[in-house]
């Protein structure tokens, strides 16, 4: 019996091995993915993102317990950064996820970014596909601690929760573009701290402006009203509220267009796969041949410019 066979019978050791195989981009990983691919009809992907120390892991910990208690199967992907210098990583999200042990409905996997800079690893969407193929109902994707522009989570997940804290005052100003625009739900964690009420009101007024700007066409469906949900993850406060907001967004998406979010997801997954494939092939043919070095010589000696050469190299690669 191969690992893939055992995976298909629901063996969790095999699940972990398949994830590694895909994550490592081992030879034939895409064939494995195509065997596993289920279309994710019954799975919903929820992303949690936000600045470092906002409490993303603690929220995932609470959410997963809440969902598992409802009988749902929950797969968790917790991403932490790889060192750009050593390539190593310290993956510590489990420290905040102590409630998840001994629960057969829950599976937690830590992932290092391995060179990606968008807040997730390049393989994160494929690990989602693996978890969907295994039959999880909900996938919680926790990004690295982010600033403004690490927005990959928006193309991988169906609902994005942006987590912030009362101390994020100035950060909210900075978040007006980027992070702010991908939030479907805002979670104000550590909301028992001073200043929580004020920052919630501030954020809601910014969101109101955003909403008015977006209300243009008369016949278009009413835009989603991004809620701000206060929580205190370590005291298990507000978690059911948070999940209710996520569920409302899920309903909103499927009412607007029942197959819509699956189309959007399929589209972005496909674009990501194509980009990676193109990059990989291009790298293999160009970087491993002498073409690149020859081109560099031409540029340095003044016989050609990089823009023309880039087009020539690309065209010759496409014909080959």
């Amino acid at each position: 019996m191969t690992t893939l066979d055992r995976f298909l019978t629901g063996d969790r050791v095999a699940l972990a091995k398949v994830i590694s195989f895909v994550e490592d981009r081992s030879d034939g990983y895409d064939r494995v993915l195509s065997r596993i691919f289920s279309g994710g009809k019954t799975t919903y992907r929820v992303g949690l993102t936000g600045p470092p120390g906002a409490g993303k892991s603690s929220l995932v910990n609470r959410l997963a317990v809440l969902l598992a208690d409802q009988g749902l199967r929950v797969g968790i992907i917790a991403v932490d950064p790889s060192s750009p210098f050593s390539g190593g990583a310290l993956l510590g999200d489990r420290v905040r996820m102590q409630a998840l042990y001994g629960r057969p409905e829950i599976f937690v996997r830590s992932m290092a970014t391995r060179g990606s800079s968008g807040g997730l690893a390049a393989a994160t969407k494929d690990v989602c596909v693996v978890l969907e193929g295994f039959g999880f109902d909900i996938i919680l994707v926790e990004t690295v601690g982010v600033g403004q522009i690490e927005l990959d989570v928006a193309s991988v997940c169906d609902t994005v929760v942006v987590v912030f804290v009362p101390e994020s005052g100035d950060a909210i100003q900075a978040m007006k573009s980027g992070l702010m625009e991908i939030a479907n739900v805002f979670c104000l964690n550590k909301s028992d701290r001073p200043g929580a009420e004020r920052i919630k009101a501030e954020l809601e007024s910014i969101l109101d402006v955003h909403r008015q700007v977006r209300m243009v066409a008369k016949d278009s469906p009413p835009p989603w009203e991004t809620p701000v949900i206060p929580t205190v993850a370590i005291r298990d406060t507000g978690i059911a509220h948070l999940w209710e907001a996520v569920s409302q967004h899920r309903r909103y998406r499927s009412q607007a267009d029942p197959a819509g979010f699956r189309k959007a997801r399929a589209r972005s997954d496909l674009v990501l796969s194509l980009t990676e494939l193109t990059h990989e092939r291009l790298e293999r043919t160009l970087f491993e041949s002498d073409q690149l070095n020859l081109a560099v010589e031409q540029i340095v000696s003044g016989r050609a410019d990089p823009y023309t050469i880039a087009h020539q190299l690309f065209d010759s690669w496409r014909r080959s």
Partner: protein
Amino acid sequence: MKKIRVLLAKPGLDGHDRGIKVIAAALRDAGMEVIYTGLRQTPEMVVEAAIQEDVDFIGMSILSGAHMTLFPEVLRLLKEKGAGTIHLFGGGIIPDQESVELEKQGVGKLFGPGTTTEEIVTYIRSVAAKKKQEPVM
């Protein structure tokens, strides 16, 4: 590309985690992916995390004297759950004769006070080099 993945754990009631954090940083700097699970882990928690994370190694730090209970229990659970290929090693205050006894039972090397981080990195790399990857399909 395959990365060496190591789970580092502090099982039992011992709260002295400075040593294991030094090891975690050293392994990260050596290019490995280190999963740190925090304090007061039971053997069941250690093994469950190791399986989900598909690690190649488990490193346990025990300074409480409970090593003759905790190491064999983790080994037993790994075999029981079908994860016997994960290599278990460790460190702490472990008398020589008990070290020998644990190694006889199948635990890897146990590092005592004065060990350099380089020795541990070298050890992990040499064991990893001998491991073969099984095909998925």
